[in-house]
C-alpha cells in the first residue's frame, strides 16, 4: 500500500473553514451540513426548541432528517441524508459506555427511517470538533473523502480514486494518511463501508478507533438497516474526523462531580462483580450463547429451534481461548466494561484476502447466533471468518445471518432449487455455501446478490417473479421469512414470550432487540401475566432504552453489570441504581434537573416523531406491526412435535383446549389461531398505553401532552384519528 501515492491522487473539490466552536454543557449547538451534489459545506445553529424537545443523538437525527426530506423521498433520493449525532453525554470519559454515535437515514431495507448505534470515536470527536451532528446530503459524482480537522477548523471534500473500499484496509490507510505520527493516530476516526455496501441493502458503516496497545485500527459497526448502502450511493468512500485535546471535561459539564461519582461507582462494580456476573471483560457478549441455548431461545435453523447439542462448540468457553485480551478493550475512553473483544492473527481461508493474517473485531453474540447457530453452523472459525468479511465488505452480520438462515430453510423445503441458487447447496450447516453467498454480495454476483437485497425482497421475488408455488408453499415462504417492516430479526427466538414478540415487532424501525428484551421477565419469571403488564413493559423499556440513543450512551453498562443490591430492589430488571446514575450524569453534563418521568418524556417525543415519520413514508399503521408467524409460534408439524409436551400443555393450561386425540396438523392450526389472537390483544393494550389509537397512530392529544403538536406532525396523523 502506497499511502502517499493514494493521497497524491486526491483532487480537492472544496475547502471550508469554520470557527472552532465551544462545547458547553454537552452541546455545541451547531450542525455541520454537507451537500455532496453541490460540494457545499455550511454550518447551522440548533434551534433551542429542537434542543429542548429532541435532546440530541437519534432525536436530532430524526428531526433533521424529517425536515430535510419529504413524503416522496426514497433511500436513494439525493435529499435523503445520513445524520450522525452523538448526544450531550457522549464524550464524557468517566462513565462506561459514553462514546456512542447514532446514525439515521431513510433505509433501503425498510424504506422508512432507520437508526443504528455504534461505538468508536467519530461522534464524540465530531462534537469536540465543533458539531452536535453531521448532515450528509446529496450525491457526489465520483468517490469522495470528507475530512474534518477539528483543531484547524477545516472541512475538505476530496475525490479519492485509489483507496480500496474494504474497511479493514481503508480505515488503516486513512488513519495512516491523516495522522502525523503513531501518537497522532488516536486522534482520528474513520467512517467507511465496504465493497458489498455498493450493492447490498445490508450495507453498514464501520466507525474506527485506534487501539494503541495492539497498534491497530479497530472497527465498530452501525449495522442495522442498510445505512452503508446509502453512504455508498452518495459516493462517499469515507468520513474522517481528527481531534486532538480530549480531556475529562471536554464537554464543559455543569457539575463534573456528579459525573465522577456515578462513573467511579460503576467502575468499582465492574472491578468487583464482573468476574462473578457476566465476565464481559473476558468474553464480551459471547457469554450469552450458552445462556440462550439453555433457555431454548438461541436461534437454530432459521429460528425453528432454540437450542442445539453442538452449541458448546461456539460458546464463550471456545471464544475466550481465541480472544486476546488487554485491560482496555473499550470502544471509547473509560469504558471499563471492555466488551470489544478481538481475535488477532487470524488466517483467512477464503476470499480475496485468503492466506492473510488479520485482526477481527468480535465475534459478538448476535454474530455467533446469526451467522452460526441460526444457519445450523457450529464452526467457531467459520464464524470469525464470516465476521471479518462482513465487517470489511460492510455487511450487517445480523441481517446476513437471518437472511442466510431463511434461504437455507427454503432450500431444504425444496422451494429454492439449485437452479435458483446458481448451484449452491444451501442445506443448514453448509459453511462453504454460506461463505460464498457473502463473497458473491461483494462481487454483486449470483444468488448472493439477490439475497443481499434483503429477505423481504427475496420473499417477494419468489412469490411474484419466480412463482409456481402451491398455496401451502406460498404461506410457508411468508411464515418463515423472519423480517418485519423489511428488517431482518435479530438473534433471539421470541416464540415463547408474547411480550418479546411485541418487543420485536412493535418497534419503530423493525425487529431489533435494542428497544425491549423482555424474555426472562415474561417467559422465565412470569412477571407480566396480563396484557396490561406486558403493555406497561412495552411502554417503559422501549422509551427508557431509546433515551440512550438521544444522549450518546451504550446500553450494556446499564444491565450487563449490576449493582450488588440490585436483586433486592423492587423491580430488578429496571436496574434502578443505574437509572439514577444516568439521571445524575445527564444533569451533571447539561445542568438541567430532570427526573425519570422527564427522561421518559424526552424519549417519548422522539419515539412518536419516528412513528409519524414512518407514517409519512407510507408505513406506521397497525398492519406493519404484524410479525411473520415463525416469530409467534411453531410453523410446521416438525417444529410443534419437537416441543410437543410444551405446546400440548399450553393448549391445555393456557387456552383450556384438550389436545388429546388431535393430530399435530390440527394442533399447529389451533395454536396458530390462539397465538395470533394473543398478539392482537397485546397490540391493543400496547397502543393504548402508548397513547396511540387502535391503528397504531399517535393521538393528537398524545402529541399535545408531549408538547410536540407541531403543525406538520398533526397534519400527518389527523386523517387517521378516530
Amino acid at each position, binding site marked *: 500500500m502506497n499511502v502517499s501515492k493514494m493521497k497524491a491522487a486526491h483532487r480537492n473539490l472544496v475547502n471550508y473553514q469554520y470557527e472552532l466552536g465551544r462545547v458547553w454543557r454537552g452541546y455545541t449547538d451547531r450542525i455541520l451540513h454537507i451537500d455532496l451534489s453541490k460540494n457545499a459545506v455550511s454550518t447551522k445553529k440548533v434551534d433551542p426548541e429542537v434542543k429542548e424537545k429532541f435532546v440530541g443523538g437519534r432525536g436530532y437525527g430524526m428531526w433533521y432528517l424529517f425536515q430535510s426530506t419529504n413524503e416522496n423521498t426514497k433511500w436513494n433520493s439525493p435529499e435523503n441524508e445520513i445524520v450522525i449525532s452523538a448526544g450531550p453525554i457522549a464524550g464524557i470519559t468517566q462513565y462506561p459506555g459514553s462514546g456512542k454515535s447514532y446514525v439515521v437515514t431513510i433505509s433501503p431495507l425498510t424504506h422508512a427511517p432507520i437508526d443504528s448505534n455504534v461505538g468508536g470515536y467519530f461522534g464524540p470527536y465530531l462534537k469536540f470538533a465543533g458539531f452536535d451532528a453531521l448532515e450528509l446530503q446529496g450525491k457526489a459524482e465520483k468517490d469522495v473523502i470528507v475530512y474534518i480537522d477539528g483543531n484547524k477548523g477545516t472541512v475538505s471534500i476530496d475525490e479519492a480514486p485509489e483507496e480500496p473500499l474494504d474497511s479493514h484496509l481503508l480505515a488503516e490507510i486513512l488513519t495512516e494518511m491523516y495522522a502525523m505520527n503513531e501518537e497522532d493516530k488516536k486522534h482520528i476516526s474513520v467512517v467507511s463501508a465496504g465493497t458489498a455496501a455498493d450493492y447490498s441493502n445490508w450495507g453498514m458503516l464501520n466507525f474506527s478507533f485506534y487501539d494503541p496497545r495492539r497498534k491497530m485500527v479497530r472497527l465498530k459497526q452501525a449495522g442495522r438497516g442498510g445505512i452503508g448502502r446509502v453512504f455508498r450511493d452518495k459516493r462517499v468512500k469515507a468520513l474522517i474526523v481528527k481531534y486532538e485535546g480530549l480531556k475529562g471535561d471536554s464537554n464543559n459539564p455543569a457539575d463534573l462531580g456528579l459525573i465522577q461519582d456515578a462513573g*467511579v461507582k460503576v467502575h468499582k462494580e465492574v472491578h468487583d462483580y464482573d468476574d462473578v456476573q457476566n465476565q464481559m471483560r473476558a468474553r464480551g457478549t459471547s457469554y450469552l450463547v450458552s445462556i440462550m441455548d439453555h433457555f431454548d431461545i438461541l436461534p437454530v435453523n432459521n429460528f425453528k429451534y432454540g437450542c442445539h447439542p453442538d452449541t458448546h462448540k461456539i460458546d464463550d468457553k471456545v471464544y475466550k481461548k481465541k480472544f486476546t485480551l488487554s485491560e482496555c478493550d473499550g470502544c471509547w475512553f473509560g469504558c471499563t466494561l471492555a466488551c470489544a473483544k478481538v481475535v488477532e492473527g487470524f488466517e483467512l481461508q477464503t476470499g480475496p484476502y485468503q492466506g492473510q493474517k488479520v485482526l477481527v473485531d468480535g465475534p459478538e453474540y448476535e454474530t455467533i447466533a446469526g451467522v452460526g447457530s441460526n444457519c445450523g453452523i457450529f464452526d467457531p472459525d467459520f464464524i470469525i471468518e464470516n465476521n471479518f468479511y462482513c465487517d470489511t465488505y460492510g455487511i450487517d452480520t445480523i441481517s446476513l445471518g437471518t437472511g442466510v438462515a431463511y434461504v437455507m430453510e427454503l432450500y431444504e423445503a425444496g422451494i429454492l432449487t439449485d437452479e435458483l441458487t446458481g448451484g449452491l447447496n444451501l442445506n443448514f450447516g453448509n459453511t462453504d455455501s454460506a461463505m460464498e453467498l457473502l463473497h458473491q454480495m461483494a462481487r454483486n454476483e449470483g444468488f448472493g446478490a439477490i439475497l443481499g437485497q434483503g429477505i423481504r425482497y427475496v420473499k417477494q421475488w419468489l412469490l411474484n417473479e419466480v412463482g409456481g408455488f402451491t398455496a401451502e408453499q406460498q404461506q410457508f415462504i411468508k411464515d418463515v421469512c423472519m423480517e418485519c417492516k423489511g428488517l431482518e430479526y435479530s438473534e433471539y427466538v421470541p416464540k415463547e414470550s408474547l411480550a418479546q414478540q411485541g418487543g420485536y415487532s412493535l418497534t419503530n424501525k423493525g425487529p431489533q432487540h435494542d428497544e425491549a428484551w423482555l424474555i426472562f421477565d415474561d417467559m422465565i419469571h412470569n412477571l407480566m401475566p396480563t396484557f396490561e403488564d406486558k403493555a406497561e413493559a412495552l411502554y417503559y423499556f422501549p422509551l427508557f432504552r431509546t433515551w440512550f440513543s438521544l444522549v450518546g450512551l451504550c446500553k450494556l453498562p446499564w444491565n450487563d453489570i449490576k449493582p450488588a443490591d440490585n436483586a433486592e430492589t423492587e423491580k430488578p430488571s429496571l436496574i434502578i441504581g443505574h437509572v439514577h446514575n444516568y439521571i445524575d450524569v445527564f444533569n451533571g453534563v447539561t445542568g438541567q434537573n430532570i427526573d425519570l418521568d422527564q427522561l421518559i418524556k424526552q424519549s417519548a417525543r422522539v419515539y412518536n416523531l419516528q412513528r409519524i415519520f414512518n407514517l409519512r413514508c407510507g408505513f406506521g399503521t397497525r398492519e406493519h406491526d404484524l410479525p411473520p408467524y415463525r416469530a409467534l409460534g411453531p410453523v410446521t408439524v416438525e417444529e410443534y412435535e419437537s416441543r410437543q409436551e410444551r405446546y400440548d400443555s399450553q393448549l391445555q393450561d393456557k387456552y383450556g383446549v384438550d389436545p388429546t386425540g388431535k393430530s399435530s396438523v390440527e394442533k399447529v392450526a389451533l395454536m396458530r389461531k390462539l397465538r395470533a389472537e394473543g398478539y392482537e390483544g397485546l397490540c391493543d393494550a400496547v397502543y393504548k398505553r402508548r397513547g396511540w389509537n387502535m391503528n397504531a397512530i399517535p393521538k393528537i392529544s398524545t402529541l399535545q401532552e408531549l408538547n410536540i403538536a407541531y403543525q406538520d406532525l398533526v397534519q400527518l396523523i389527523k386523517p387517521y384519528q378516530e
Partner: protein
Amino acid sequence: MRKLIVDSSKCTGCGQCEITCSKAFFKEENPQKSAIRVAGESGEHDITVCTQCGKCIDVCPVYAITQDKNGVVRINKKECVGCLSCVGFCDYLAMYYHHDYVVPFKCVACGLCVRSCPTAALTLVK
C-alpha cells in the same frame, strides 16, 4: 523500589499525614485532597496509601500511568483523560479523585507525610 510502608497499629488518627499531603500537592489543608487516608474512630485506625503495585497502569486507556525508575507509579496529567478507571480498579482503594479536579491523584512516595507522622507509623522504603 520506593514506596510507603504503613503500620496502622501505631496510628493515632491525628490526620497530620493527610494535612501534610494535601498542603504539599493542593496547597490546602483538606483530607479529601490527600493521597494518604486515615479511617476509623477511637483506637483502631486504618491507613490507606498506594502500594505502587502498578495495576492501574494496565487499565489506563491512554498510557498516562507509568512506573518511574524508582518504581513509583505516576500519572501524567497532560495525557490523562480523567476517566477514573484507575480509581475504580485500584485493589487497595488508594487512587483518589476530587470534584475540583479532572485528573485523579495518588501517593508518589515523596515522604513528606513520613516526617510529619508523630508516631512513626509511616516509613519510606527505597
